[in-house]
């Protein structure tokens, strides 16, 4: 009846089981001990990582909270600060407008390009596409100042040295595209192959499979990637610093100069003679951090929604 014909010369089943169980117990005990040590290290690493982060947040909130009021948010910066009334610096609405405008255009440009690139990277293999992927990955590490110089040379200069929000958006889009592409591609790669096969086996065209099965499954992860790339771009200063110029009024015109939150901060800190403007940077910093926080929160909410009923 038995199909076991392996001779077991060394030990009986019971002996073997006893041996394995004692090994398991010893391993477990060692692991318990090791995992305690490990936990201590983890805790220390966490604390070391959190200390600078928390102290930044503490400083920014501590110094910046008094700027968070409707007047500060809704009035543009003062055109000129007078020597005699240094505290009348106005608000930051022109920079909020600029940031929204530039980031919105940049995102609108970056999303379709990134998704198309991600799909083509996902769908095709081979030398050329591998080279493209490597190129994209290298672009992630491109110093952002280079992007700014590039846009200055190919966009701002030909337009007659005109500083525009649009040029800034192009620069930010260039920053976002590699990040978004890689994030979207890995979202596509995370789709279980069995799903693709199931759809193909139903006679679906590959393009249909992509649209109906792969993309819907990948969307939550893609959104996370897109939002993270956006929050990276929101705070970027270097690539837009010398291409968007500045605007003292709330301007929604892409082809006009604009001020964004990071560039305003830069100018207040380094080009202003007034302590009041330097102090206001705390407020701007708080708003920027809050914006990044909101983006992250939004991506979480969207992902949680789309993930419902999926296992």
């Amino acid at each position: 009846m038995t199909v076991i014909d392996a001779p077991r010369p060394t030990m009986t089943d019971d002996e073997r089981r006893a041996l394995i169980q004692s090994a398991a117990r010893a391993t477990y005990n060692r692991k318990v001990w090791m995992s305690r040590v490990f936990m201590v290290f983890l805790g220390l690493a966490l604390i070391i990582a959190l200390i600078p982060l928390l102290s930044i947040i503490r400083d920014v909130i501590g110094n910046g909270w008094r700027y968070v009021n409707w007047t500060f948010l809704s009035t543009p910066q003062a055109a000129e600060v007078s020597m005699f009334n240094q505290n009348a610096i106005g608000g930051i609405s022109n920079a909020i407008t600029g940031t929204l405008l530039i980031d919105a255009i940049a995102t609108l440009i970056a999303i379709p390009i990134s998704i198309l690139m991600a799909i083509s990277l996902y769908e095709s293999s081979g030398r050329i596409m591998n080279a493209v992927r490597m190129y994209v990955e290298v672009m992630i590490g491109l110093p952002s100042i280079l992007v700014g110089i590039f846009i200055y040379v190919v966009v701002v200069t030909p337009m007659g040295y005109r500083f525009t929000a649009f040029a800034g958006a192009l620069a930010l889009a260039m920053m976002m595209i590699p990040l978004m592409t890689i994030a979207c591609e890995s979202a596509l790669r995370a789709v279980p192959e069995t799903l693709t096969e199931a759809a193909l086996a139903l006679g679906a065209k590959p393009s249909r499979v992509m649209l109906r099965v792969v993309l819907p499954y990948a969307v939550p992860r893609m959104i996370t990637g897109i939002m993270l790339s956006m929050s990276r771009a929101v705070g970027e200063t270097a690539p837009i610093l010398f291409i968007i110029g500045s605007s003292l009024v709330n301007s929604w015109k892409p082809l006009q100069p604009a001020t964004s939150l990071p560039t305003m901060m830069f100018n207040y800190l380094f080009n202003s003679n007034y302590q009041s403007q330097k102090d206001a940077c705390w407020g701007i910093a708080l708003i920027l951090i809050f914006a990044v926080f909101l983006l992250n929160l939004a991506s979480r909410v969207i992902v949680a929604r789309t993930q419902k009923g999926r296992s």
Partner: protein
Amino acid sequence: MEITEQGNEASKQAQQAADSIPSMVEAIADKGPQTSIMSLRDVAVTFGSKVAVRDVSFDVGKNRVTSMIGPSGSGKTTLLRALNRLHDLTKGAKVTGSITLDDTDIYNGGIPTTLLRSRIGMVFQRPNPFPTMSIYENVASGLRFNGVKKKSIIDDAVEHSLKAAALWDAVENRLKVAGGTLSGGEQQRLCIARALAVEPEILLMDEPTSALDPVSTQHIEDLMSSLKEIVTIIIVTHNMQQAARVSDDCAFLLMGDDRAGELIEFATTEKIFTDPSDKRTLDYIQGRFG
């Protein structure tokens, strides 16, 4: 050859029994349906607000094969996964009631989960060999996880487990290739070998032969009968004949009016299949619903 082997086993055992102290003889003689290795009392599993299975109480006889049958969705897999605490990983999953292994409550700190799982093996409904490991490494993985390092022991266990799972002949010459390259049925047998290598006391099997051809199925069923000597088996199956053939005891689960699975009847397989106490069991056995 098989008969000889059986003879060898028997004579070896007789020899051992004769050599050992009387208490050991008693222990062997004691092995009957009365000895239970695992007890379930009012076990229920819920996912958030959904009750997947409830009101389950029975004893798992040591060195016996217990089958769980019932229609799709009656909570067989869910119940099986409660026995080695796999639901710990699922957010919102909750197991209530008591499950004891050798009189130790497995949910209330009686035994570390890791150790519990090294004593209770599992074969899943879908084959899941580790794709990054070779066939050899797949079988050896459990031993390595548990800190067994000696190569001779691992070699021996790999060969023995693969033979037990009726896979040795097919893979003997390609132990180093990736486990994912095997056919679906071969992968399932690889997973069985992987579970056996750890010498578990209990082996949980979730429809282990649903992906196998009749010959391999036959092998696995034979294997279960011979494995009983050393391991207690709990098997979920949709195949009535299989349940009747291989199991000693049988649990029948069915959805109640609110679609939650319930234990309808637990008895010896013989009784379930010849003289069930509950009419619903009879209906199911005779294929009247499900």
